[in-house]
């Protein structure tokens, strides 16, 4: 079952995931069925119901504004795929 409003290739691009044609076809079918299943929520009347965003109603958690030691620069860079001069190397963003 497919879902006409779901365009997997387009959403995958929004999510920054490259997919091959086979994956697009498989996901289109599988996610169509999941969305079909989720349609059952439309049977409920939710007018006037407050949405729950979080399990606990905790607001404005504050702490004393004091500096704390963070990760050591060397440790923070250890897992970076590309490093030079103690900095993370990123892929070029601006065209020349």
């Amino acid at each position, binding site marked *: 079952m497919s879902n006409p409003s779901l365009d997997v290739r387009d959403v995958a691009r929004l999510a920054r995931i490259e997919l091959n044609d086979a994956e697009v076809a498989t996901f289109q079918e599988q996610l169509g069925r999941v969305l079909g299943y989720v349609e059952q929520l439309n049977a409920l009347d939710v007018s006037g119901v407050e949405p729950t965003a979080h399990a606990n109603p905790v607001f404005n958690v504050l702490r004393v504004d004091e500096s704390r030691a963070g990760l050591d620069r060397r440790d923070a860079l250890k897992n970076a795929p590309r490093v030079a001069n103690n900095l993370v190397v990123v*892929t070029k963003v601006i065209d020349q």
Partner: protein
Amino acid sequence: MNDLSTLTVHELQAGFRRGDFTPLEALESLENAISSRDPQIGAYLSRDFETARAAAASADILLPLGGVPIAIKDAINVQGEPCRCASKMLENFISPYDATVISKLRAAGAIPFGRLNMDEFAMGSSTENSAFQKTRNPWDTGRIPGGSSGGSAASVASRTAFASLGSDTGGSIRQPAALCGVVGLKPSYGRVSRYGLVAFASSLDQIGPLARTTRDCASLMNILAGKDSRDSTSLDLPAEDFTAALGRDLRGVKLGIPKEYFVDGMDTRVRSRVEAAIAHCESQGAELIEVSLPHTAYAVGVYYIIATAEASANLARFDGVRYGHRADHPRDLLDHYMRSREEGFGSEVKRRIILGTYVLSSGYYDAYYLRAQKVRTLIRRDFEQAFEKVDALVCPTSPDLAFRIGERTDDPLRMYLADIFTIATNLAGICGLSVPCGFVEENGRSLPVGMQFLGRALDETRLLGIADAYERSCGLDFARALPK
């Protein structure tokens, strides 16, 4: 030297304090158990015996968990150890820091040890979504151990861990605990700091213990729980002794039986074992009260909208820049992102990120995400109303026995429905515990069945007391029951 690997945490600590054996000897027993049994089970992704031995040699056995090795799900950061979330995305990642639960375990004298297999980024119900290896159910190695904390449950069941940590977003501690015949607790949301747990769905995730007895889970909770300034969702509550209600009986305990959790389509053998266990509770003096959670049927749908939406945002951090997999020779930044994520993530993770992105996208947000959040409110209210009448709810943990490896991998929706009895707990933020309640014989194998007790938010002490009373009176010595 006796094999110590079959002892519970409680027995291990008693042995240390009597001087019967040392933490180093206990660790050596574990090493032997892992060498002989884990090749068939595959619970561990890696283990560092040398560091653990050094910690065991200098352990202070008078501390609350002094000298006790605790095995850790691969989603929880332990400084200097790999933390790969069973994903190629993090194949080379070494944790630069300890999660708060790990700092707490160390302070209590415990020895965090080993990395346990899981579904990639905790997305799955069978541990088949690990990028690195399959984990097999110790009771029948042709079957899955459950998931996503499959390694956490399989290690405890196969006596290659005394206890372990898992994480539970929609049942990922309780369902594998049930399918492997061990005890697993999902604490109430906010009980345990999530700092250092790789985030999947932040409004649902919670770290919790798996062990061979309820008592051991309670002892671990005494260490794990508490406010942490590094996790603003952790709750600031007075210190609590989670072992305080152990050793009691079931007289006068009001147990609610949610009728929606006994449905057509579940394995009738699972149902009959759980019903027999509930009847046993009644024979021990519990009062049984039928209750209704009318929105139960919507929980899976709500979950797969909310959890995937949160996951799509949380997993946006894996961009191949500061850490994680980076594609070779990107043409430009977009190509860098798209190929790094294509190569690093497995199918289920991609599927969920795409679904989550879709339900949050412009034009669909109200129809899916906002509606799901409203139905989440209705599910919470169901529980609030039920808990006005009862002390705890009792129901099956999983509708099925452990299924065969490969049986559901092509059918995500069917896999999602494996969590039908555990998901609502996370949506409501309450606590839940799975305890073994019987076996089903199939093809000459005994497969464990789990029973779930659900409690009010922050009512873990009572919940643990009820489960402990059941466990001690049920006549099945699960702490001793060993897979063949």
